[in-house]
C-alpha cells in the first residue's frame, strides 16, 4: 500500500513538465488585488459586515474593518499563497488543489472589503442568497453529471430546468400544495429527458444538436402553454403556493452557519441529500462503476456484459429528473408564478458548473455555489452602487468558465466517450 502510493506521488515529479501557469496566474491576480483594492484605495474608510439576523438566538454586532489596511493585509496573504505555489512548482512538487481554492476565497474577500468600503452589508444574507441562487445551478449540474458520466452530453439542462419550473408551478397551483408541485417538477423534466434519450441513444443523433434543439423546444412549448392557457387562468393554474422555510431545530441556531445552511426550504435540504447520494452512488457502488465504464470506454463495458445503451437511457432519464427538480426552484422555490423563459440561461451556467466541478457532484456543488455567490454579489453591489459596472459582474461566471476550460486553473477532462453514440456492430 505505502509502496504504491509512493510510486504514484513520485512518478509525476520525475516525468511531469513543470507548469508555471498556476503560480503566474495567482501572482498576477495577487498583485492586481494589492494595487487596486489596497494601495490605490483611499484611506480612512471602514467596511461593515453584518454577521447575524435579527431572529438569531445569539446576535453579534456588525464587524467594522478599516478598508485599506484590511485589503492590503489580505492581498499580502494571497501573494504569500502565490509565492508558496512558486516554491512548490520550482521544486517540481504538486501544488494542492486547496491553494487556488483558498486564493479565490481570499481574493473575493479582498474585493468585498474594497467594494463595500464606507458602506455595510450583511454577510449572512449574502451567503444565504448565494446558496439559494446556487440551488438550480447545482441540481442542473448534478443532472449533467449523471448524463455525461454515462457518455451523453446534456446541453438540454436549460430545457429541463424550464419544464421543471413549469410543471411545479402548474401542479402546485392545481393541487394547492407546494410539495405536490415539487414532485411534479422531475416528471416534467423527464419529458425532455425521454426526448434526449430517444434521439441521442436510440437514433444516435449528435448529442449537442439534440440538446440545443430541445432547449428551443422547451422554450416554445412552455411559452406557448403559458400564453394560451396560464395567462387566462392565472388564478387556478399559475398562482402556486411557495415552499416554506423549514428551520432545522438546534442546527439553525448556530451563529452565521445556522441561518445560512439550516434555515432554508426543503429544496435546499434535498440538494444536500442529492449531492451525497449521487457522490456515493457514482464512486462507491457497483452501479456507479458501470456507469463510469460506459462513459469512459463503452466498447470495454459492452465486452464485460454491461448493456451500454440501457445504462445510458437510465442515466439520461435520471439526470433529467434531477435537473427538473432544480427547475422547481424558479417557481415554487422563489417567486411562485411561472414566467416565459424564466430560467434565462441558468441551464448553461449549470453546464459550466459541471465542467468547473470536473464532472463530480461535490465539485459541481462548489462551482454552483461560486456562481450563486457571483450572482448574489452582483445583486448586492448593484444596490450599493459600487465602482464596478453591473454588466461586468454579470459576465463573471462566464469568463471564469472560459478561463477554467482553457486550463489556466488546472486541466479539465470529461468522460472520454461523452458525445459519442454507441453503435454496436
Amino acid at each position, binding site marked *: 500500500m505505502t509502496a504504491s502510493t509512493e510510486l504514484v506521488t513520485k512518478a509525476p515529479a520525475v516525468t511531469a513538465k513543470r507548469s508555471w501557469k498556476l503560480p503566474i496566474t495567482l501572482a498576477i491576480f495577487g498583485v492586481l488585488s494589492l494595487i487596486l483594492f489596497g494601495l490605490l484605495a483611499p484611506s480612512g474608510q471602514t467596511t461593515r459586515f453584518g454577521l447575524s439576523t435579527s431572529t438569531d438566538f445569539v446576535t453579534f454586532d456588525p464587524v467594522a474593518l478599516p478598508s485599506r489596511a484590511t485589503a492590503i493585509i489580505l492581498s499580502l496573504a494571497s501573494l504569500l499563497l502565490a509565492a508558496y505555489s512558486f516554491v512548490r512548482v520550482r521544486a517540481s512538487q504538486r501544488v494542492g488543489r486547496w491553494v487556488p481554492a483558498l486564493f479565490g476565497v481570499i481574493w473575493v474577500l479582498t474585493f468585498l472589503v474594497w467594494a463595500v468600503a464606507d458602506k455595510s452589508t450583511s454577510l449572512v444574507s449574502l451567503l444565504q442568497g448565494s446558496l439559494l441562487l446556487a440551488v438550480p445551478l447545482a441540481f442542473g449540474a448534478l443532472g449533467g453529471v449523471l448524463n455525461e458520466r454515462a457518455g451523453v452530453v446534456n446541453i438540454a439542462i436549460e430545457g429541463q430546468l424550464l419544464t421543471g419550473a413549469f410543471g411545479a408551478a402548474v401542479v402546485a397551483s392545481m393541487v394547492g400544495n407546494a410539495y405536490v408541485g415539487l414532485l411534479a417538477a422531475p416528471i416534467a423534466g423527464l419529458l425532455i429527458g425521454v426526448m434526449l434519450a430517444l434521439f441521442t441513444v436510440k437514433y444516435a443523433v449528435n448529442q449537442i444538436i439534440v440538446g440545443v434543439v430541445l432547449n*428551443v423546444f422547451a422554450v416554445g412549448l412552455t411559452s*406557448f402553454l403559458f400564453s394560451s392557457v396560464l395567462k387566462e387562468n392565472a388564478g387556478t393554474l399559475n398562482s402556486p403556493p411557495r415552499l416554506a422555510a423549514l428551520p432545522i431545530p438546534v442546527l439553525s441556531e448556530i451563529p452565521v452557519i445556522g441561518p445560512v445552511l439550516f434555515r432554508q426550504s426543503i429544496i435546499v435540504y434535498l440538494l444536500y441529500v442529492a449531492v451525497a447520494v449521487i457522490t456515493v452512488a457514482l464512486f462507491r457502488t457497483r452501479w456507479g462503476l458501470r456507469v463510469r465504464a460506459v462513459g469512459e470506454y463503452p466498447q470495454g463495458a459492452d465486452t464485460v456484459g454491461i448493456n451500454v445503451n440501457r445504462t445510458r437511457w437510465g442515466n439520461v432519464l435520471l439526470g433529467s429528473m434531477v435537473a427538473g427538480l432544480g427547475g422547481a426552484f424558479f417557481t415554487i422555490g422563489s417567486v411562485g408564478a411561472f414566467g416565459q423563459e424564466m430560467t434565462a440561461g441558468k441551464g448553461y451556467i449549470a453546464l459550466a458548473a459541471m465542467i468547473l466541478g470536473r464532472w463530480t457532484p461535490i465539485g459541481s456543488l462548489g462551482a454552483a455555489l461560486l456562481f450563486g455567490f457571483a450572482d448574489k454579489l452582483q445583486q448586492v453591489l448593484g444596490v450599493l452602487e459600487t465602482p464596478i459596472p453591473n454588466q461586468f459582474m454579470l459576465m463573471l461566471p462566464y469568463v471564469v468558465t472560459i478561463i477554467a476550460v482553457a486550463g489556466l486553473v488546472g486541466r479539465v477532462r470529461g468522460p472520454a466517450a461523452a458525445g459519442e453514440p454507441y453503435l454496436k456492430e
Partner: protein
Amino acid sequence: MSDQQPVPVDEAPTPRTPHKGHEPDAGGSRTAQMLRDVTTGNFGVTVLAFVLALVIGGLLIIAVNKDVITAAGYIFAKPGDFFAAAWSTVSDAYAAMFRGAVFNYEATTAAKALKPITETMTVATPLIIAALGVAVGFRAGMFNIGAQGQVIMGAAIGGYVGFAWQLPPVLHLLLALLGGVLAGGVWAGIAGFLRARTGAHEVIVTIMLNYVALYLVAFLLTTSAFTRAGSNQPKSPGVKATAQLPLLLGDQFRLNAGFLVAILAAVFVWWLMTRSTWGFRFRAVGSNPHAARTAGMAVSSSFVLVMVVSGALTGLAGAVQILGTERALTGGIAGSIGFDAITVALLGRSKPLGIFLAGLLYAGLNVGGRTMEGATGTPINIVLVIQSLVVLFIAAPPLIRAIFRLPVPNPALVKGVSA
C-alpha cells in the same frame, strides 16, 4: 448515411467518399460522421418531417383552444362539432400564417398583398448569412454555438463604424460591413484559438462568449461613445445614411440590399467549401482529423481558421441587421438570430442552397406566426415548437420512416443506426 443521397452538385472532388457501413470505431471522426448524417439525407424525409411537425403543432393548437375544449365536452353527443371546431381552429391558424408570411390574399392593394413575402425576405437575410457561418463550422467538424455572440459583436462594431464615423457613401458602407466581419471573426477566433492551444471545447467557450458579448454590449450602451447625446437610453445614435444598406423596393417595404449580401455570401460559401484549397482543408479536417494530419495538414491552425471564417460570416449577419433593418444599436439587436441560425444551418443540411431555402422557410414561420397571433390569438411560440421538431425529425430519418411506415432504402445504412 450519406450513401442514400443522390450525388449533390457540390459533392464532386471531396474526401467524403461514402463508405458502405461504418467502421467499428473511427475515433475522432465519429463526431464528424454524425454531423454529416444530420446534414445529409433525402428530400422526402425533410418534407415528411415538416408535415409531422405541423401536425403536432396543430394538435397543440387544438388542445388549448377554448371552442374546441367546449365542443369536446359533448363530443359523444355531437362529434361533428368537435371535429369542425378543431379543423377550423387549425386551418384558420395556418391560413393566417400563410397570409402573414407569403401572400396576403385578403389585401386591398398590390403592395399590401406582396408586403408579407418581402418581410419574410427581410427577416431571412441575417438568418441566412449567420447560418452560412454556422454551416462552415459544421462541415469542418466544429460546433459554433456562439453565433449569437458573434452577431451581437458584429452589430456593435459594424454599427459603431456606421454611426460614429464620417466617410463618403460607398466606402462608409463597406467599412461598416468590414467592421462587423472583423468583430465576428475575432470573437469566434477566441474559441478557435483556445481549442487549438489548450483543447478547450469550442461548444462551451462559444456558449460562454455569447453571454460575455451580451453584457459587453449592454455595458457599451451605457457609455457616451455608444449613446445619443443627452440621452441615457440604452440606444445608439442612428446609422448615418452613407452607411445604410439601401432599400430595394422603396419606402413601403423594409427589404434592403442586405438580401443581395446574403445571396453573395451563399455563393461565396459554395465557392469556399467546394472550389478553394481552404475549403478542401476544412472538409478534410472535419471528415477525419487524423487522416488530415497524416496528409500533412495543419489541423490546429485549421481550428482557428474555421472559427474565424465562421465568425466573420455571423458577424457580417449582425452588421447587415443593423445597417439594413434596425439602423440603431440596442441591447436586443440580435434577437434570437444567432440561435435560430444553428437550426437553419441544420435544416439546410449545411449546404448554401439548402440554407438559403431553410432561412426563407424559417423566417416565413416567424413572420407568419406574428400574423397568426394577431388574427387568431394562437401564441407565436408554437412556431418554436414546430421549428425544433422539424430539425429533430430531420436528424432522425429512421424515426420518420418508422412513423410513416416507409421502406428502408438501403440495408447497409440501417446497420449504423438501429443496431
